[in-house]
């Protein structure tokens, strides 16, 4: 259902609801509030059903409808639910999947916004879908990933057990503004939830500064050692001290601006985290083995998803699970057994060809994906799908901050490099300047043709789409290759 139609239904429903309520129930304020809430919930639920019958995802529209009728619907829906909120630029979804696995392994009954609908409306849809008709939740716990900019609204209604901030990087400047805006949005949110435990990335000076003025209890997490061999070359999003504007020095760097930072002139520095990875034992295509210390107890853990950035996601999830009272053994078990989230190295079989979908959306995340792809062996085809719709970020300049040059240094591994999406031409241009000849690149605009070509491959395929490109591709893949629908 298009958002225009959704808005129309919402406006009409809100209008008639007001007419009825104003006429009949004007004297019963408390009852009216409840009636308003229940109407919002029920209409939301009907909308969820309608979307499913129509074969659409509809993770957003039902929530918007419910919010129009009852702006504080989320307050009622989340009351009595133990909620953990997870935010940050990168890693929200993967961290949520580990947390969900850990809660389940601990025998706790939970739900989550799995499809990544992480704005206020999407979170309302998720809570409404998991509520009984009475408004009570069907589950005791909720694992909610939340957009950084939406967090300050969500925290007006949800009073969570904990808030986990994975990291802060530059991301979709046209939407979030500068990283300092994201930071101040998170600070405002923290002030909304004084009772919540903060789980913060100690290696990210930006994230760490979110707790500067907060009195909340903090669980810190981080990585004590470099993750990658060799020099880390990517740009830093935070070269200068948030307090005194002097340059940060680093004892070591993991990637981006993450690592052992210390201000060159004031006292501001990384503190040893409560939950930390102290050694990387081995890393490969199926995951990473690490030594993890949880409040000074050491464990050997296997993280069931490859990529250095997933080491951070594992630490973030461990901190979050700790805040929920989950025991260390269960945490370690969850790290070794969770399954990647929506478009996070998600594996599909397209006509017998193994295809992995890895969502890309900003330079830091994309550099990590490139890093992972370059470290692998064996022939593979890479496909990049670049869109510039609102949910992708309308400004695609960020592709010039990604080290695609590293990909060009691994041509030995590539059986092909294809580009697609609305801004395929810009992507092809970036790759040309990264060191690919025009003849080495293929632009395939039509997704059906693209999927046909992928299904005809003999080697594995890695697809790197931006958000809306991923949604479009999934829609076609679901129909053609009988994949599970994502909102199930």
């Amino acid at each position, binding site marked *: 259902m298009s958002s225009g139609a959704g808005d129309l239904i919402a406006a009409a429903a809100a209008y008639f609801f007001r007419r009825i309520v104003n006429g009949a129930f004007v004297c019963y304020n408390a009852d009216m509030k409840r009636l308003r809430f229940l109407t919002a919930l029920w209409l939301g639920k009907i909308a969820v059903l309608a979307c499913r019958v129509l074969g659409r995802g509809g993770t957003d529209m039902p929530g918007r409808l419910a919010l129009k009728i009852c702006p504080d619907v989320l307050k009622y829906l989340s009351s009595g639910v133990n909620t953990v909120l997870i935010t940050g630029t990168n890693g929200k979804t993967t961290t949520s999947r580990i947390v969900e696995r850990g809660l389940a392994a601990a025998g706790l009954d939970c739900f989550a916004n799995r499809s990544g609908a992480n704005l206020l409306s999407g979170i309302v849809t998720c809570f409404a879908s998991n509520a009984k008709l009475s408004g009570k939740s069907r589950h005791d716990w909720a694992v909610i990933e939340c957009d950084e900019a939406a967090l300050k609204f969500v925290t007006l209604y949800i009073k969570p057990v904990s808030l986990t901030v994975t990291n802060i990087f*530059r991301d979709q*400047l*046209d939407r979030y*503004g*500068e*990283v*300092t805006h994201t930071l101040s949005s998170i600070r405002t949110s923290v002030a909304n939830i004084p009772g919540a435990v903060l789980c913060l990335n100690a290696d990210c000076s930006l994230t760490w500064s979110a707790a500067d003025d907060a009195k909340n209890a903090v669980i810190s997490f981080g990585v004590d050692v470099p993750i990658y061999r060799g020099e880390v070359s990517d*740009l*830093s999003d935070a*070269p*200068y001290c948030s307090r005194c*504007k002097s*340059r940060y020095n680093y004892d070591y760097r993991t990637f981006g601006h993450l690592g052992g930072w210390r201000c060159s002139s004031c006292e501001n520095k990384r503190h040893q985290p409560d939950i930390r990875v102290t050694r990387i034992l081995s890393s490969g295509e199926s995951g990473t083995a690490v030594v993890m210390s949880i409040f000074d107890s050491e464990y050997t853990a296997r993280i069931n998803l490859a990529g250095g950035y997933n080491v951070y996601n594992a630490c973030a999830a461990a901190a979050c699970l700790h805040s929920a009272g989950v025991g260390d053994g269960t945490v370690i078990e969850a790290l070794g057994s969770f399954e990647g989230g929506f478009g996070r190295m998600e594996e599909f079989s397209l006509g017998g060809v193994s295809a992995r979908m890895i969502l890309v959306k900003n330079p830091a995340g994309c550099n990590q994906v490139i890093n992972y792809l370059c470290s692998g062996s064996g022939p593979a085809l890479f496909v990049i799908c670049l869109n510039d719709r609102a949910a992708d970020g*309308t*400004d*695609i*300049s*960020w*592709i*010039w*901050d990604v080290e695609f040059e590293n990909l060009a240094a691994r041509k030995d591994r590539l059986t092909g490099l294809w580009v697609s999406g609305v*801004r395929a*031409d*810009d992507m*092809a*241009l*970036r790759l*040309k*300047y990264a060191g690919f000849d*025009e003849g080495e690149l293929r632009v395939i605009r039509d997704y059906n043709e693209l999927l046909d070509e992928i299904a005809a491959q003999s080697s594995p395929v890695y697809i790197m789409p931006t958000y809306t490109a991923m949604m479009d591709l999934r829609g076609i893949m679901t129909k053609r290759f009988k994949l599970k629908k994502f909102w199930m």
Partner: protein
Amino acid sequence: MNTVNDVYLNICHLYPDTLNLYGDRGNVICMEKRLAWRGIGVNIKQVPIGCELEWKDTDLFFIGGGQDFEQEVLLPDLEGKKADAIREAVEDGRVFLAICGGYQILGKYYTTHDGVTCSYIGAIDACTVGGAKRMIGNFMFRCAPEDGGFLVTGFENHSGRTYLGPGARPLGTVVRGFGNNGEDGGEGARYKNVFCSYSHGPLLPKNPGLCDRILELALRRRYPGFVLPELESGFEHRAASYMSNRLGASPC
């Protein structure tokens, strides 16, 4: 491909770690590649905060954009010798390409939305006033005829409104979008061999005509009358014409 023996260019990338917002380095990558593809040598020197600027041997300076926080970090560094060096280099006719925040700091001052004024380098006759509303989106402008008349597509994202004094002229005229201030239809600035634009991120890759013009100008100081050999630019033009079509103008 033609090769040019022993020809080289010295490029200085000013504040690469501070003014590097959102793909600005795409411009440096672009200049480097377009020179290398023609067999022209290029030395890129990075000059961060705290390093002295030896401008005399530099042919072309590049300054990118930054966030408000980073631009504040820069101010003390600009007060001393560096501002003098930049002004001298500009007056001497060295080629500059300055984008967004870099454009603003070449101007005289910036007055924030709440009335605080920061003095900048004053190398060009421009000043900037902070606005409440950000000017964001894909945009398009046409360079002045004396600058080649290229139709340039880019992305702007700025709250500062820049006004030019009589000592500078716009780089081009806005076709779609806001440009310098959203009022007078001007985009960017030109003074001597200084080129400024609000087209943040990778301005040059999609606009190879403008890139080559800037490179040629810089090369001619060292090699008078130098003419750049042509390059195949199919991908460049395809990316540019996709956006110009979307914005509703046909390239010519």
